[in-house]
């Protein structure tokens, strides 16, 4: 999973993840700053897909990175820093109480005009509304397994649940999404 996450993120560092982890663990502020600048956007996208709320996603990522700095002394050099942070972000996003307000869907498209953009706006609004019907835990499970391609076992570990519980979340999410998409298409 780490390799996959690494490849998806924007980190263009010469250092390996272990080097960065070791430097952060040693209190290297430059290494930490570089890590934040390289990865924050990726984790923001993860958090947004769970919260569907921009401010909530920003807060989640901020809290996750602050937690990382506060717990830097317990980082293991051979540990999986990227995966650890992914787990923190996903769980903070699930726990966040703020939810997408449908009025915000339109705010995201302010300033756009034209027929093509209107059509795109409608499609994206429909997607947002469809995903918003899922509870955060189901949305997080679906995002990890079907979008990020994380194996179900690892996704379950990330959420701190067993495999059966994850399968149940995925199954229920599929039913809801199918009903929503078929219902809107009809």
């Amino acid at each position, binding site marked *: 999973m780490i390799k996959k996450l690494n490849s998806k993120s924007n980190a263009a560092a010469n250092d390996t993840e272990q080097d960065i982890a070791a430097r952060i663990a040693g209190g290297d502020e430059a290494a930490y700053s570089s890590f934040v600048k390289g990865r924050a956007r990726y984790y923001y996208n993860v958090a947004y897909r769970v919260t569907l709320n*921009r401010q909530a996603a*920003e807060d989640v990522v901020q809290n996750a990175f602050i937690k990382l700095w506060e717990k830097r002394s317990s980082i293991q050099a051979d540990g999986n820093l990227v995966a650890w942070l992914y787990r923190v972000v996903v769980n903070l996003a699930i726990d966040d109480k703020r939810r997408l307000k449908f009025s915000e869907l339109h705010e*995201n498209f302010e300033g756009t005009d034209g027929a093509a953009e209107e059509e795109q706006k409608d*499609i*994206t609004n429909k997607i*947002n509304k469809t995903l918003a019907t899922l509870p955060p835990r189901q949305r997080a499970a679906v995002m990890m397994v079907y979008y990020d391609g994380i194996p179900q076992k690892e996704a379950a570990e990330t959420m701190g649940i067993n495999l059966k519980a994850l399968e149940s979340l995925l199954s229920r999410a599929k039913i809801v*999404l199918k009903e929503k998409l078929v219902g809107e298409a009809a």
Partner: protein
Amino acid sequence: MKDSEIKNLFANLNVPAPSVGFEDAIIAKALKPKRSFFAAYASVAAICLFVISGSLMAPTTQPADSSDYAYILDDSLAIDDDIYDELI
């Protein structure tokens, strides 16, 4: 429902850009030096100790003036006199 359809839902989700300076705000907040409360705690503790020790050391009763001492002295002399009287 196909897995790819679900993947497309997320792929086509419009993720708004975070606020300007988002990363810098994280760094500034995380690296902000935390205020040390040790000096504040130490000074409060010193004041408390001073007040408590002062109240413990202070005498509970004090003679009002020198005549009180004289009265005590006179009594002791009188008692002493009685003792000597008996001995004689």
